[in-house]
């Protein structure tokens, strides 16, 4: 019944975030806080791994939107992976698939940072 938990791992200098549950106006602070912590540590490579994410409301999308410029300015990127169909649909509906790189699996998102494509220009 917990509304949202956000676990965190690190791999190859990349911060992996695992939101489980629902991101909305009530829970978004927790999600934002985890992103902000990474930025405070100077870590600008972030993967949001969404296998446990049931839905993300506009408040959550706004949270990502609010940091992406700072992240990219610092040569990093925030990428998404392993989204279920519902969440993937939300991103598609809003055209966010043009603003963010979304990967089928976490490992692909991690490997994508090796390509030297850190400067997170949106995918073609």
């Amino acid at each position, binding site marked *: 019944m917990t*509304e949202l938990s956000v676990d965190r791992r690190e791999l190859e200098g990349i911060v992996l975030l695992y939101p489980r549950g*629902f991101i*909305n*106006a*009530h829970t978004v602070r927790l999600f934002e806080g985890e992103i902000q912590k990474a930025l405070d540590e100077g870590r600008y490579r972030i993967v949001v791994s969404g296998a446990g994410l*049931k*839905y993300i*409301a*506009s*408040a959550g*999308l*706004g949270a990502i*939107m*609010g940091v*992406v*410029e700072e992240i990219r300015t610092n040569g990093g990127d925030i990428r998404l992976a392993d989204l*279920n*169909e*519902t969440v993937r*649909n*939300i991103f598609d*509906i*809003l*055209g966010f698939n*043009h*603003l963010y790189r979304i990967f089928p699996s976490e490992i692909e998102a991690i490997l994508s940072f090796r390509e030297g494509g850190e400067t997170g220009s*949106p995918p073609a």
Partner: protein
Amino acid sequence: MSGRRPALVLRVPSRTEYLAAIRDVTRRMAELAGFDGGEADQLALAVDEAATNVIEHAYHGAADRRVEVRLDVRGDELRVEVVDDGEGVDPRAVPQVDLRRYASERRTGGLGMHLMGRIMDSVTFRRTAGGNVCCMVKRRPAAGSGAAP
């Protein structure tokens, strides 16, 4: 709901900690109406956005007002009404979604309304004696039957 009582009515304080209860009953009703789990989550998301807007915009964050959610299955559609007695929606204030400006200006306004419109088949706002009503309708899956309340 014009002439007929809705099946399920939930009334909660205008606080975001009650969005979870709104989500729960919306998903239950969506499942009773024959929607699958993913569709039920999307419907719950649309209702979450509408209720969040009531808290943030109709009540400007005041925590002691009331949000009412009415859910009903009518024939082949699920109907949701989110009702407040705060400031009504000014249609001119509703921003058009402009994706290009999101990225360049960090604009995020308008996403909620846009999502509601994309998830539901129709979203309409009206003022009534009982308050401001955001009415959202979604056609039920063809196979769906069940809770005709």
